[in-house]
């Protein structure tokens, strides 16, 4: 089932500045979708980086580091 796309107002914290709130619906949705995509990319990149980092961590420290990162 398709889910409704989140609006810009729902994606950012606080009230939108007047000039942004006055943009057309399509333009606001374009910004909302771009922000959503940027957040998704950031989440995926962070998860991958946290896992990959362990290759560089001395073996003795991998356990504590895994625990600290929550892996």
């Amino acid at each position, binding site marked *: 089932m398709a889910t409704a796309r989140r609006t810009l107002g729902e994606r950012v*914290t606080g009230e939108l500045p007047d*000039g942004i709130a006055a*943009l057309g619906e399509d333009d606001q949705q374009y910004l909302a979708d*771009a922000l959503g995509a940027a957040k998704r990319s*950031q*989440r995926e990149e962070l*998860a991958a980086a*946290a896992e990959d980092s362990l290759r560089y961590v001395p073996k003795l*420290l991998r356990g504590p580091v895994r625990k600290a990162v929550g892996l």
Partner: protein
Amino acid sequence: MTARPEIERIARLLRLRPDQLGFLHDVDDAELMAFRSQLTDTLFDAHAGVLTRLGSAAKLLPSPVLAKIAQHVFGPLLCARVAGTIDPGKASEVAGRLPVEFLTDVAVELDPRRVEGVVGNLPDDLIADVARVLGGRQDWITLGQFVGFLGESPLAAAIGVLDDGQLLRAAYAVDSPHAIPAVVDVLGTDRLSEMFTAAAREDLFAALLRLASHLRDDQVPRLADAIMIAGRGTLDQLVAAAATYGHWHALLPMAAALPGDAKADVAEAVRELAPEVRADVVALATSLGVLDDLGPIADALAERAA
């Protein structure tokens, strides 16, 4: 000259090109800045838990290992996100172990508000190295957004490696206009004068007037001195730029501080302006409290404004 630094900053955050945000052109800078701040907070806060845990893990590792991870795994964007969660002293140690090109890539992605402690711990020569690379890349946006977060000594180091044209372009992109007087404080009158010459040579009067419009009162006479050293030939161009960009509020206090014969030159240029523009300039000079100090310029304005 880059038209809208704020749109470039928003595009960078959203991983878009500025031309994909053409619909933002009618939004004023203050609102774009407020929106950018919202976007920045949203992106940084979205994964605050993970970032904080990564910052905690960083405490367990020696700086050389962190530098390797930063460069080979995290890359510039994620380093910029994590940097604010790491102890500033340790983050500075790691920064000192990274290649300058990589560190510059990180600087491009940073939110200076979140790494003030880290930036404050970096040695001046490292700041200067990054500023040099940013200048070479013509990344005025990044240079401009760090200006308000540098102390006098690192600011002087950064300014020292930029040429006059680069400095003007960075000044045009400065994030916090209240930081501009600090820039002028570290510039000698000779350097200011060279910037006037560069503005004339490279058509950068819009940037120069933006810089001039945020001066403290006590800095205005220094700028007037710098104009005189640069040569009175720049005065016509300065008046033309003020007319084009509407920066009379920057020009008028400087003009009031010029010697009498230079005021006469400005008066000649002002006579060429349309009557309605003169009337507006008179009103502005009155509200700025400089009309009585303009001498022949005020007379020239009054000739057709009456």
